[in-house]
């Protein structure tokens, strides 16, 4: 579903990712590991086509970075959920609106938007908080809102860039459990982190090690 063929994204000499080959199949759970600056975020950006390879090819579903048209981008993005360490919530909208917005952009009728949004908020244990503004949520709750928003379009893959970077251990474990559940339902998960504890606690998942822009194992 995701495939990197000899991908290089060069920001400057020795900065970026170099000759990366990898493949992530449907329903897999993969950790992307490496130190700060190793290129984890860059790989994620390449998958949602926010960065286009300097050379090589990135394939997501039936889309290739070589033939990608700008016009297709929004429709591809709806098939990829993304969450970040800084949540990227719209601070001036409440929980419900934040999640519903991802459906609204697909031009779904309002009634359906409401039903689907309430459903996923309930699943996430957020339905009671739906009128709260992001400012009034704990970090763990914010991340759950972000995950709800990322999942509401039923993406093929969820990309998580250090999703627990801003969380305490309890929230971290809760988020990981949610990601596992998401994965069990068939959504692939690619999670970038340099948190070794998480990896130690979840030994059964695949790991891709990255160092200085290159895959090392």
């Amino acid at each position, binding site marked *: 579903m995701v495939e990197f063929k000899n991908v290089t994204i060069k920001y400057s000499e020795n900065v970026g990712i170099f000759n990366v080959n990898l493949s992530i199949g449907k329903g897999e759970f993969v950790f992307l590991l490496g130190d700060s600056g190793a290129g984890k975020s860059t790989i994620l950006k390449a998958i949602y086509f*926010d960065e286009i390879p300097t050379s090589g090819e990135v394939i997501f579903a039936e889309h290739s970075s070589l033939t990608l048209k700008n016009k297709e981008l929004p429709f591809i*993005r709806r098939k990829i959920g993304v969450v970040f360490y800084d949540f*990227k919530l719209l601070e001036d909208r409440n929980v419900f609106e934040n999640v519903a917005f991802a459906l609204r952009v697909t031009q779904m009728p309002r009634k359906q938007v409401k039903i689907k949004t309430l459903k996923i908020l309930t699943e996430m244990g957020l339905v009671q908080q739906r009128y709260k503004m992001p400012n009034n949520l704990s970090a763990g709750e914010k991340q759950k809102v972000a995950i709800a928003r990322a999942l509401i379009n039923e993406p093929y893959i969820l990309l998580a860039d250090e999703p627990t970077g801003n969380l305490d251990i309890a929230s971290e474990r809760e988020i990981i459990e949610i990601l596992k559940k998401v994965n069990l339902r068939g959504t692939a998960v690619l999670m970038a982190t340099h948190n070794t504890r998480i990896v130690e606690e979840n030994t059964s998942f695949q790991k891709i090690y990255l160092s200085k822009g290159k895959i090392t194992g």
Partner: protein
Amino acid sequence: MDLIFLIQEAFDGLKRTKYASLITVSTIGICLVLVGTYFVVSKKSDDFLEELKSKISLQVFLQNTVTESQIPNLTQKIKRIEGVAEVNFTSKKDAIEKLSNEMKTDLISIAGYNPLQDEFTVLLLPNFSDENSIKKIKINLQNLEGVETIEFNNSLIVQIGKFQENYKKINLMIGILIGIFAVILITNTVRLSIAARSKTIEIMKLIGATNLFIRIPFLLEGIIQGLLGSLLSILAVFFAAKFIGDNFNFDFSVSRQTYLTLVFLGISLGFIGSLIAVEKFLGAKKNKS
């Protein structure tokens, strides 16, 4: 396209950024008051100069040999001269009577005869109020049979007329400066009010909003801000004109066209400002392909 949603988004955006929007709308309003004032003042001063020019006249005095029966003929000939707007005849008899009345003295009995001459007052068209045209008209009048002397007492107006050419240039320059000022200030305030939400645009892109979907609410917002700003400026100009009219006995009525121009300017500058901003943030990360 869920147009209702997009319109709702635009109004929501305005509500969410209440104070910023208020400042934007006021800025647009103030700019347009300046533009409106410029329109009104330059229109008034133009009108004033035109009115002055339309009062330029030559006095044509006739020889004593000219008889009353020749007057209609002479009137026709003067009318046919290029640049003449109107011709009025005053007989020396009417002239002395009028003068005697004004002075409350019988002037004929003092002089023993009527010392005045028959005369034509020749009003000129505004376009012929420059020195050259007046000279030509004078020559044409001089060549008519029965004309003795021609007097011209409006040289001051001719001087003002000369100044008018320069005045028009200066006025145009002021207009252009005000225009540039308004365009820059308005497009920039609208642009900044959107720039403050570049993060929102980034997130919208991330979750798969099409460019059109992102663009429309922001453009609508810009248009609404421009419209509200222009309405504000119309209110200000209207009441200022009314105040001046009521208190200074000076007709300062503002034409409907001026009001419409202000609305048009507000809307289009609001639109352009938001367009520049949105396009900038939409294109912030162009794909290299």
